[in-house]
């Protein structure tokens, strides 16, 4: 403890005492009365003031740079979001135009009619066009009381996958989650604790809409793997779910662009 004791007992630099003692020993007065005018002290205070100002300005500048950087990033995100939604709107309007032109072309002949119907049924199956029909809506929501520690009371991507698989196996003909059509290219995955469907972040509650025979679809879903999965997670972690039959559901078109896969077997 002697170090700390020294620190408290002799906070003044011992050099001052020593110098004063030396001067006394040499027979001089330890110091003159007008030491406030010492140039060394004045210069030291100038240096201190300079250091202080530099440091304060530095901290302020850094803070403003950081916040403006942040602001710029936020702006950039908003701009890009806007651009994405504008481009997506363009894509869907172009797709509907393509569909219209195709059906116009095919309407002219009997063979064309048949081809058109074929194309439409294929498009409905793959999710390339919107479909309407009776079906069920499965609503899944996070538990009301959140367990913040491990977060198991939230709906996981796995749960939604099980629901969608259950609906397919119960005879659903088209499925969408919160307005995102499930197509052959759809991924239901979670990134950073956010469920992404078609690479779009989704929020609870999740409404899984499926078109199919409204009675048998709901019954078979309840009896099948999807229903039992939901019952399990509802009882184990308090997740809420509900299955409703609907007279008429409209599922939007999904985005199914193919860049590398070319139709046909090739040569």
């Amino acid at each position, binding site marked *: 403890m002697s170090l700390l004791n020294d620190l408290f007992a002799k906070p003044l*630099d011992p050099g001052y005492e020593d110098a004063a003692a030396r001067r006394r020993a040499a027979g001089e007065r330890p110091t003159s009365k007008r030491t406030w005018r010492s140039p060394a002290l004045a210069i030291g205070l100038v240096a201190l003031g300079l250091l202080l100002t530099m440091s304060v300005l*530095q901290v302020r500048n850094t803070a403003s740079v950081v916040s403006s950087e942040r602001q710029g990033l936020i702006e950039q995100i908003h701009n890009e979001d806007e651009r994405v939604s504008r481009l997506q709107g363009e894509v869907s309007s172009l797709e509907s135009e393509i569909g219209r032109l195709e059906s116009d072309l095919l309407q002219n002949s009997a063979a064309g009619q048949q081809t058109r119907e074929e194309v439409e049924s294929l498009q409905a199956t793959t999710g390339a066009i919107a479909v309407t029909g009776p079906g069920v809506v499965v609503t899944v929501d996070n538990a009301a009381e959140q367990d913040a520690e491990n977060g198991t009371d939230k709906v996981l991507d796995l749960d939604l996958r099980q629901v969608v698989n259950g609906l397919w196996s119960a005879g659903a003909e088209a499925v969408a989650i919160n307005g995102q059509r499930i197509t052959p290219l759809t991924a239901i995955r979670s990134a950073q604790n956010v469920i992404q469907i078609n690479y779009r972040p989704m929020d609870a509650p999740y409404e899984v809409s499926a078109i199919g025979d409204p009675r048998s679809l709901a019954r078979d879903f309840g009896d099948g793997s999807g229903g039992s999965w939901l019952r399990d997670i509802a009882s184990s972690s308090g997740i809420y779910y509900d299955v409703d039959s609907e007279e008429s559901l409209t599922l939007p078109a999904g985005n199914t662009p193919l860049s590398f896969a070319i139709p046909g077997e090739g040569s």
Partner: protein
Amino acid sequence: MIPLAGLLVGILAGLYFDVSVPLELQPYLPIAIVAALDAVFGGIRAVIEGIFNDKVFVVSFIANVLIAAFIVFLGDQLGVGSQLSTAVIVVLGIRIFTNVATIRRHIFHA
């Protein structure tokens, strides 16, 4: 009065010239300031007690700043930079407090 004027001159010079610290020296600036504060308050106390000495003041000022910066630099190299900064600030902070308390006693006799 002259030391106070010096402090003002320093602050105004800093504002006027807008000197920027090189990036590599930035971590050492706060520590250097605390060290300089310690030396300055030590000097003021010495003046009040009538044992002020130019040479001791100048040497303690420069040595304080350099040693404090060096300790932090060393700590950075060893991966304990923040802990050593804390240690330096605690030690110098105690000294500043005790010296300022003595100055206060001399001025107000309380």
